[in-house]
């Protein structure tokens, strides 16, 4: 056989490397925007989302709110429920549109095409996440505003920058966790539905979306803290309803832990994606056959 010229032989000069890096970044961002696009479009093209993603959460919030009212709890408790409902929208989005997503993408054949594209799959995941976050933000905001108006809840914000920081960190950590799960789900494709069902409801309770976390006790609380929603929600609650409730940890510490979770989950997502890709290439599991 003729010797083939190895294409990697020539070492890139620094200027060249800089240009390559910029080109790589540009490609990555374009990939991300491309993948985010269908999520944003889908959000507005199917009008029934208004029912499923705003009306249903509102109904759920109403149910809890009425219970609190019956117990003559302060008005702010209902505010807690509304905040939790808004955050739950993100969790549901992460579960069904991040964690389970690669599983669906494999069934449609998209997974192969995404891998075959020159940018890292992480950009695809980032696009999915950003698209999902933006689309869900519209719903969560709708739930928040409508819920607050209906029940006349007022907020007493301690520090806007901290609220925003806590919210953003928990969101990024949450989607990082979703990306990590997405790769792992590819390994266990049959069990996905079972896992989804098992996770969704307990998480709503554990993370304190409808019930304050601190009420669950320190051990359950510590476990729940692994899910970024818990700490994020607790921090935001402290910052908008100060002194209302016993808290899990001081808000500043919670935000610091969230920052660590961001690194852990995003790093974990990168690692598991790489692991899955290599393993799937060896096992031949990137596509499904129905024959």
């Amino acid at each position, binding site marked *: 056989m003729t010797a083939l010229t*190895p294409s990697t032989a020539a070492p890139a000069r620094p200027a060249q490397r800089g240009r390559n890096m910029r080109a790589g970044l540009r490609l990555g961002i*374009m990939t991300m925007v491309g993948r985010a696009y269908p999520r944003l479009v889908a959000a507005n093209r199917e009008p029934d989302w208004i029912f499923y993603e705003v009306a249903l959460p509102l109904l759920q919030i109403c149910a809890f709110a009425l219970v609190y009212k019956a117990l003559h709890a302060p008005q702010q408790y209902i505010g807690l429920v509304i905040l939790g409902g808004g955050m739950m929208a993100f969790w549901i989005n992460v579960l069904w549109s991040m964690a389970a997503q690669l599983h669906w993408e494999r069934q*449609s054949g998209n997974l192969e095409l995404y891998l075959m594209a*020159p940018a890292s799959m992480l950009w695809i995941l980032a696009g999915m996440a950003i698209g999902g976050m933006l689309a869900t933000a519209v719903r969560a905001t709708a739930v928040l505003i409508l819920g607050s108006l209906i029940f006349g809840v007022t907020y007493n914000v301690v520090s806007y920058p901290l609220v925003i920081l806590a919210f953003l960190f928990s969101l990024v950590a949450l989607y990082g966790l979703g990306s990590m799960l997405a790769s792992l789900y590819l390994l266990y494709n049959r069990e996905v539905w079972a896992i989804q069902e098992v996770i969704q409801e307990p998480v709503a309770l554990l993370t304190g979306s409808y019930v304050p976390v601190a009420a669950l006790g320190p051990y359950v609380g510590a476990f729940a803290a692994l899910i970024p929603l818990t700490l994020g929600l607790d921090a935001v609650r402290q910052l908008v309803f100060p002194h209302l409730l016993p808290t899990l940890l001081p808000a500043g510490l919670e935000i610091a832990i969230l920052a660590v979770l961001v690194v852990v989950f995003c790093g974990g997502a990168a690692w598991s994606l790489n692991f899955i890709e290599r393993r799937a290439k060896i096992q031949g599991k990137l*596509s499904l056959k129905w024959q």
Partner: protein
Amino acid sequence: MSHSAQDTVPAIQTIDVRRVYQARGGRSIGGAQAGKGVTALDGVSLTVQRGEIFGLLGRNGAGKTTLIKILTTLLAPSGGQAYIDGMDVTRDVIKVRQIIAMVSGGEQSGYGILTVREQLWMFAQFYGVPSKVAHARIDELLSAVGLGDQANQKVYALSTGMRQRMNLCRALVSDPEILFLDEPTVGLDVEASRAVREYVRKWMGENPRRTVLLTTHYMFEADELCDHVAVINHGQIVAEGTTDDLKRGLQEHARFQLEMAEWLPAFTEMLRERDGVVDAQTEQRNDRTQLRLALLREEFIVPTIASINEAGGRVLALRRIEPTLEEAFVRLVGDEAESQREGEEAQR
């Protein structure tokens, strides 16, 4: 970049590529054999030059898709080397991915809620094609495959044939150099599959560096499109060459069919005794006689006809019988019934 050196690098080259699929779960279900897995590719060596449309033919389960998956960096080979434009598909993954594209028959890629244009734009994004360039390309591609009117239609509303043509556009929107087509016309009607074939040929004609590796079960498609073909059977290449090579390789004798008038049965005997005539058969058709000749070599047809004329027979028409690619294929890999029996056995 020195072009002369570049052009000698084959577009696609595989050296002794092997691929074994391990049995699912690693547990042996049907005794010891089940644990060994399936050998899908068993030492495949192929070279495809720039500018070629190369056809890979083989029965179901022969290993065609497996080879394409390896070449498109989606599957790791169990052994051997594979190169795209001189780049190793297992090591230079990113560079390989920049110049390839793949379309599979019946693929359901993309998102139904997007319009055709949006879907193609999304895939152009993944290859860093600026939006302006992408939209110009999308317009051109869609009208070329007859989907100009569907640009703003939702993807879920497309028929199978429209969808498949859109898939072809999807692959071409990144302007790849090397295109893999895995049964691109499966399930398409006559017109749609012709549209796909015609466009592939036109696309190839636009740039001499473009290369296509195609699999198909339609022999006429391979015959019509491909410069070179290889026949793969049980993971091994059993024949390779131009379609004409394959057909000729099959034919030991030159075969002719003649329409005769004023034929006498004695002529047949006379012909059979002539030098260079391997066989002669006749069949009565109304007032004519159809004569089938097998000759040692093509050149023997001239003296043979001369001797018929001398004896008083009259040749009305003469036709050389060419074997079809399908015949060549069946000869190489066995017939359908056999393949089905084997397939059923493999299922168990």
